[in-house]
């Protein structure tokens, strides 16, 4: 197994660092899948993380100037590593002004992702910084756990309001309740509701717009075609999961949307130019 990538462009490095930092805010441990064309940060929904799962896809050509990899075998030309994204993020943050950054899979005291950066100096010889981020190699038999999640058969899909606004609302609500209900309809309306013994609070968002999935998803389900646009699809989720998702976002995405499967799962999708992030929060009773 071999992997070697090089980032030269400052803005690419910046962008990559921001993506990794966002991931680090969402989870302590995740799986990094490397394929010839893409990098994926994957978190599979296990009870330990409260059932949330995450899928983040980056196109390597948008970040790396050089990218070479050799997977486990020629049929399975992939590398799967378990990594602590916070380490990666810290390593990348310190080398933002580097002339070049190389990311390689190495074996030091254990398998590592080595981030080697050349920093500019006044003299001719540059400074070299090396960060060895320890990783665990995931064996092939476990790869099925980290496959791309399929699009759920959602009831409603809606664009999200500005994430900052949503975050401040959710932050306030977290003080009052542990659970929050997200509901939305096909008329571009979304509500965030909490209810306790003493008080119930609802924040209404209007005119959000609904993504035109129509043709792709839920084709078979004629019921959703004729779904009453006013009817809300709702799901009750753990408010901390939603807050964690919102906290991590550093840049405004080009598109942010939310798919709700009634009482099942909330599927959040963020699309940037070269990165897509999907986050699944399971509904609780």
């Amino acid at each position, binding site marked *: 197994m071999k992997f070697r990538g090089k980032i030269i462009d400052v803005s690419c490095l910046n962008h990559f660092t921001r993506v990794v930092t966002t991931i680090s805010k969402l989870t302590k441990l995740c799986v990094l899948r490397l394929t010839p064309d893409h990098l994926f940060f994957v978190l599979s929904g296990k009870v330990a993380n409260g059932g949330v799962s995450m899928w983040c896809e980056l196109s390597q050509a948008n970040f790396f100037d050089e990218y070479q990899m050799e997977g486990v075998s020629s049929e399975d030309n992939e590398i799967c590593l378990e990594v602590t994204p916070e380490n990666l993020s810290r390593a990348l943050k*310190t080398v933002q002004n580097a002339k070049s950054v190389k990311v390689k899979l190495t074996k030091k*005291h254990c398998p590592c992702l080595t981030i080697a950066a050349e920093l500019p100096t006044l*003299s001719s010889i540059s400074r*070299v*910084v*090396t960060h060895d981020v*320890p990783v665990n190699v995931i064996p092939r038999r476990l790869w099925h756990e980290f496959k791309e999640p399929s699009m759920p058969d959602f009831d409603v899909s809606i664009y999200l309001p500005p994430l900052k606004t949503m975050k401040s609302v959710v932050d306030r609500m977290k003080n009052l309740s542990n659970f929050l209900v997200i509901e939305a309809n096909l008329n571009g309306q979304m509500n965030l509701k909490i209810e306790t013994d003493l008080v119930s609070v609802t924040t209404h968002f209007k005119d959000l717009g609904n993504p035109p999935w129509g043709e792709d998803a839920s084709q078979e389900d004629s019921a959703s075609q004729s779904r009453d646009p006013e009817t809300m699809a709702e799901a009750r989720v753990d408010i901390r999961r939603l807050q964690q998702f919102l906290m991590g976002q550093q840049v405004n995405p080009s598109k942010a949307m939310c798919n709700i499967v009634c009482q099942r799962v909330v599927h959040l999708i963020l699309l940037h130019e070269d990165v897509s992030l999907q986050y699944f929060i399971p509904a609780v009773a």
Partner: protein
Amino acid sequence: MKCVLEGNGVKVFGKAVQALSRIGEDLWLDPMVKGLALRSVNAAHSAYACFLFSPMFFQHYSLGSGSEPARETIKCKLVIKSVLPLFRCLTAIERNVERCQITISTPTDRVVIQFFCKYGITKTYSLRFQESEALQAEFASHLCPNVLKAPARLLSDMVLHFPVSLEEITLSATPLRFTLRNYHEAGNDHMKTMYTEMSLHPDEFDFFQVGADSDVTFCLKELRGFLSFAESHCLPVSVHFAAAGKPVCFSMEDMVLEATVLLATLMDSENTGPSQPVGPPVPTSPRCADVAALPVVSHEGNSRESQNAPAVMELIPSSQGSPMINPPALRHLLSTADDPHGPDVPDEASAMATPASTMICSLLFRALASEQDDDGCDVSLPVLACYSDTEDEMEGDYTRSPSLLISQRRLNLPSPGVNTWDSARKRLF
């Protein structure tokens, strides 16, 4: 003692207090003829810092306080937690404080710090102090084979690459390369620890002399405060170090102030493993505690009090290599030091069976005696840890001039003789 600071001086003083607060819990104020020294040492006695402000730094500096003539200078020990809040917000100080006056008032046992601010506001803080013998660490920096000098910015930039929580850092130097890396410790949860290594070319330093290849490991946390002070002053920092086990010294100076941080280093990275714990467990972080230091700090009164200091009694480099003539008292001690059951040995020392190969450091302390003795000592005393002013009769054989060699016999390492800090420093700069 009475001194007055103005304007920017207050900010500098405040920054020094902040840097010292990263080291230990107590702040020693030591007014001397040559200036006001602020010192601190950490609980494990493996880190020591001293900021010496010369009289020129102050608008006014006098050793007597008001009507009292300067008969005897008082050395005070303050709790840093009570001093730090006064200087916490330096930007506010910069904006509002016009003058700061610090007075040590003996009759009331208080240090009075007054801030004369804008709009006629005066803030007066009265802090109780404990009278104490001061500490002073001895370090033969002129004997260090490796000397580096670099702008503070360079060192700060390097240290930036390491996480703030990092305890220990290893510095390696060869004539061709200078490297900093995390201290590798076996048995850590390998998924959590990221290892970072950074190297520089000697050209980046203002002065780079590596006489002997060495790897020294020391506690980084305690250095950060000092580096931030140096950076705010744009002063170059000098680094003196030798082999593993010998202390590393970071220092900087300009016309009106000198600052030094002495850090103990781990002995030999191959012989990792806890050093024999002596006495009560050290209250600092477990790793820095392994680096046991010499605490021979004399507190007022009973020299046996030093036993209260944790991780006591490791090592003092002997004066065997010293060319200096020992005063009679010292000579006597040297001979008694060979006696394994010398009267000056606290129980712990004899209980200690640390072989030289366990982690030890050789940080030296010498309590300051009065000023005449100080000068006297400058000339004649090559060493080392001292007690002074002990009413204890057990050391009755020697005079007030401080020179107790503790556990010298246990020292297996040949060490060069050391001169006092002042002369060593003068030689260097």
